[in-house]
Every structure is written in structure tokens, then in C-alpha cells.
């Protein structure tokens, strides 16, 4: 069981890291701001989510596990909102 | 190379970089940024002093750490006052510079 959880942790964190990496590459390589935004927000949310998922089995207590989830939720909330704001600003700039 | 030595050297490098910027940049806001770099370098030096003082089951000496927190707050307050001055200068139509000789722009309003 413990071995299985460890394996899950490793897999999830590795996947999360991959998404972070991919997102950063996208940020650096994509041609325009909107697609960069796309790479950043979508992939970072997913990447962070996977890392949080991987860390959950290693949490010391239920409270710390809860804190991890809350962190992810907060990042989701602020990431989504700022992406909206940046997107609007970009559209306004284009007009 | 322990983390504390690396951080200490980093602090020294930041002080140097900040000093360079402080002397060279003519714009006050850039000077302020450079000053903040010096500040954080100094706090890092203080930080390795705290880290080196690990003893009695603590991984740090709490006294310098408490001082750093006080220092960061004071440095921020200083930045805020400087920014307020810079913004006010530009609002009264003055070119934002530290040169006392530069005249007020003719179209700029006076403070009074």
C-alpha cells in the first residue's frame, strides 16, 4: 500500500513537473501574448494540481493536506481571474 | 559551500550591483530600485549571521532574524515615501530628476 502511494506521488509530481516545464517553454516560445497566456495558465494550473496531488499522501496531518488543497484552489482562482484580466487588456489594446 | 556561505556571497554581490546602479542611474525610481537591491543584500548578510548562529536546537539565531523583519518593514516604508515624492514631482510637471537646476516645465502647474 505504502509502495503504491509512493509510486503515485512520484508519478504525479513527475507529471506536474513536466507540465510546468512545458508551460514555461510555451511562455518563452509562443509567438503572441494570448497563446502565451494559454500556455501559462492552463498548464500551470494542471501542473500545480498534479504536484499537490502527489504531495497529499505525504502530508503529516489532515489539516496540512487541507492546506495543500486550499493553496491549489487559491492559485486556480487567482490564476483564472488574472488570465481574464490580461486577456481583456490585450483585446482592448488591439482595438 | 554551505547554503549560508552561498547566501552571504549572494548578499555581497547584490550590495555591489545595487551600489553600481545607485551611482549610475539618473532616474530616481531606478535609484530607488538599486537602493532596494542593496537593502536586500544587507538583509541577506544579516541572514547568514542568523543562520550561522544556529545553536541550542534552533536552526537559526532568532535575534538577527527578528531584526531583519523589522528592517524589511522599515525599508518598505522608505520606498513608499520615496515613490510618493517621485510621483508628486512628476505630477507638478517637473521632469523627474535629482538635478536642482532643471527648470519646471512651462505647461506644468505649480504646487501652490
Amino acid at each position, binding site marked *: 500500500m505504502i509502495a503504491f502511494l509512493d509510486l503515485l506521488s512520484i508519478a504525479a509530481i513527475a507529471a506536474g513537473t513536466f507540465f510546468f516545464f512545458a508551460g514555461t517553454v510555451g511562455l518563452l516560445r509562443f509567438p503572441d501574448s494570448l497563446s502565451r497566456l494559454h500556455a501559462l495558465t492552463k498548464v500551470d494550473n494542471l501542473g500545480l494540481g498534479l504536484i499537490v496531488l502527489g504531495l497529499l499522501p505525504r502530508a503529516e496531518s489532515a489539516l496540512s493536506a487541507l492546506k495543500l488543497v486550499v493553496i491549489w484552489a487559491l492559485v486556480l482562482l487567482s490564476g483564472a481571474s488574472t488570465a481574464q484580466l490580461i486577456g481583456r487588456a490585450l483585446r482592448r489594446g488591439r482595438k | 559551500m554551505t547554503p549560508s556561505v552561498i547566501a552571504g556571497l549572494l548578499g555581497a554581490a547584490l550590495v555591489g550591483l545595487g551600489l553600481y546602479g545607485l551611482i549610475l542611474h539618473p532616474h*530616481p525610481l531606478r535609484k530607488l530600485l538599486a*537602493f532596494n537591491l*542593496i537593502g536586500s543584500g544587507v538583509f541577506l548578510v544579516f541572514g547568514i*549571521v542568523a543562520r550561522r548562529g544556529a545553536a541550542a536546537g534552533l536552526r537559526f539565531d532568532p535575534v*538577527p532574524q527578528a531584526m531583519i523583519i523589522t528592517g524589511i518593514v*522599515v525599508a518598505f516604508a*522608505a520606498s513608499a515615501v520615496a515613490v510618493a515624492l517621485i510621483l508628486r514631482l512628476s505630477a*507638478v*510637471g*517637473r521632469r523627474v530628476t535629482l538635478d536642482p537646476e532643471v527648470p519646471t516645465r512651462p505647461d506644468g502647474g505649480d504646487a501652490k
Partner: protein
Amino acid sequence: MTELWTTTPGGYLIVLAILLPLAGIILSFTLGGRSAERVALGSTPFGLALACAIALHVGRAGKPIVYVIGALEPPLGIALRADGISAIMLITTAVIVTAAALYARAKFATPDGIRESRSSLIFWIMLQSIWAALIIIFVSGDLFNLYVALELLTFAAVPLVCIDGRPETLVAALRYLLFALFGSICYLLGVALLYGAHGTLDIPLLAQRVQSTPVVWTAAALMTGGLLAKTALFPLHLWLPPAHANAPAAASAVLSSLVVKGSFFLTLRLWFYVLPGLSADQAAMVIGCLGSAAIIAGSVMALRQARLKLLIAYSTVAQIGYLFLVFPLATGAQSWSAMSWSACFMQILAHAFAKAAMFFSAGLLAEALGHDQIARLGGAARVLPLTFLTIALSGLSLMGLPPSGGFSAKWLMLQASIISGQWFWTLPILAGGLLAAGYVYRILAPALSDDRISLKSSPKRSQEVLALGLAMIAIALGFMPQTFSDILEIGRPIAAALP
């Protein structure tokens, strides 16, 4: 030696002296409007009384009075100590702040019909803040606590410079702020290194522990450099003239006579109380040379100014230079070091009172004439006799003519430099006196001419009398009895080493 870290009788007075202006700031800010002025003015007699009480205790006990905050002893806690030099500085500060508060009532009263005006609120809060910060600087026994006090002083002084909001005052304030912040951060870096080397920031504890190591030397250099920038020692004086010349008269007086002395006082604390064991002859020589250069350069610049307030501000740059001669002259336990020590403090006091009187008079002149161009002062002495009497008297002290505090100070300095065999310091001292005579003459000569001049408004008699009173004190300092030097020696580490 443990008595340095236990609360002594009368120690509580120090805490009260600090908390009084702090409470004043809080009250002024919360109540706002006219109450700010009332709180500030109402607290000055108490502050004056506390300063005198502290001096009385120190003088009577013949040793520093100590208060250990929260009964938590250094090195973990903070101890406050008032020794001889703190006592003298506390009284000086209290007198000048009180005078400035009374003088400023005319300009910074909240106008009728307004609940609160910007400049009045700022002035009364900042005046009390300067007072609080200076008291802490004079009595704190902990180098980090002193850092916070230094910053408090900066934050209080900068808004006073640009209180009238003209663009050039904003530039002056910004420059001052950047210089002051740079000075503080250098000081803080030195503090960090000292803590890293010796694990304490309490002044007497450090004095016992410091050794002549590269770390200590670097720390000392950084702290000194930072403090010199704040004290506006040549060539770091660039910020001072515009800042002091553009502030309103009451603020200029406080800035020029007291605020620069705060950081100078810390330099003295550093070298004579924290590091008396370091033999620093070369460093002292360098500082002495910078001081000499300041005397000459500041006086020459003062001679060339067209505006009265700028002239007075450059004169401050010059007069500060004299103070730094204390470093080559008073280090070590020599027969002349006590003499130089008294000379230095006599110069601090004489300059403080004379300069405050000068700035007050300059403010009165500017208000009465509508300008402060020296070239257009023709005949002004005949319509404003009292003001020009004040300028003449304080000028006497700045030049160092007898009888005056300035004369005593420079005379003692001359004697000390000859006895110590460092005769070369006599040159800048004498040259500075001549140049000072030159710039004072530049103010007085046109004013005493027969030209006719019209006044925009006649100055308030009470303000003139205040300025004259300060100038009289500067003169009276020349008759200071020997007890003055004795008080200055109380708690001075090197004095204990004398046979």
C-alpha cells in the same frame, strides 16, 4: 561592571522622556486639526523638565543612569543609558525644539474655517517625531535600536523639507531621502557584521569584546561612512544646502542645529564608546582632513551665495567640519583629549543655538521683505534692528570671536592642536574663522547702509525675541563654567583609563 546593565535610580525618567513625544505623535495624529498644535506645545514644558531632571540625576550621581527595558538585560534585551553627553544634548534639544515650536505657531497654526490643514498637521507631528528620535539617539545603548531611531529621524526630517510643496523643495527632499537611506543601510550592514563577529549589539558589551579584526574594521568603516553621509560631511554634503535652505524657517533651524548632530552624535558613540580600544590614528587623520576641507569649502561656498538661507545652510556645512577635528584630537587618553572633547561639544551647542537663531532671523527677514536676496538687503538693519542684532550676535559665535560659545570651542581646539603637536589643524580653524567673518560681513554690510527699504509687513516682536534669546544663549555659552567639561566626561570610557 554589572551596574552598566541594571536599572539605576532615576532611570525611569529616560523612558518617560522617550514616551512623552511618542504619545504626543499618536495623539496629534489621531485628534488632528488644532489639537495637534496643542498637544505639541503642551508637551514641550514636560519634555524640558524631563531633560533637566535627567541631567540633574546624571550630574548628582556622577555616573550614567541606566534603564533596562522590561527588566530584560542585554544582550537579549535593550538598556537605555543617559551619560554626561546625553544629558547635555537632551537639554539642548529640548530648548531648541521648544523655541522652534513657539516660533512656528505663527506660520503653522491651523487657519480659521478649516478643520485641519496639511502643513500644520505635518509640521507638528514631525517636530515631535524629530524630538523623539533625537532623544532615543542620545540615550539608546543598543546599535540596532539606534538604527530604528535613525530611520525615525529620517522619516521625520524629509517631509519637513518639502512641507510647502514647491517642486524644488520636492527635489531637495528626494535627494535628502536617498542620501539618508543610503547612510542608514550602510550603518545597518556594519551592525550586521558587528553582530556576526561578537554576538551582541549592546554598546558597553561590544566595547569589551571588540578586537582589531578585518570584520570590525569593515563594520566601522561602513557605519562611519553611512553616518558621515547623514551628517553631510564634505564631500557628502551635496544634499544639505538645498534641503535646509528650502524648508520653512522653524524647520530649517531644527534640521540644521539638531538633526545633523544626531548622526554626528552616533559617530562619536561609535568611535569613543564602542571602539575606544581600536587604535585608529590614520582613520582619525582622514576624518580630520575631511573636516578641514569641509570648513574651507563650506565657508567659500557660503561666501558665494546670493540667497541668505543658502548662505546659512553652507555655513552649516562649514561649522560641521569643526566637529570632526575631535577625531584626531580626542582619541586616546592624552592630556589634551578632554580639552578637545569639551571643545567638540561646545561647538555642537554654540552652532546649534547660533544657527537656530540665524534661521529664525532669516525667516523673519524673508517674511518682512518678501525675499531673501542678500544684494537687496540695503538698509534693512535700520527697519529691523532686533533681527539684525540677532544675526550679528550669532555671527559672532560662528566666527569664533570672544566672548561666545563659538570662541570657547575654537580656542580650546586651537590649544589642543598645539599641545598635541598637531599644529596643522590650526590652519583650517583660523581660516574658517576669517571666512566666516567674510560671510557674516556680507550680510551685515549692505543691511547697515543708508538705503531706504520698505517692509511688506513688520515681524512679530515675540518671534524676534525668541531668535534673540537663542543668540544670547550662544554668546552666554562662552561663560560656561568648568562643570560643563566635568559633566561631559561622565560615563566616557576613555576617562576611566586616565591615571
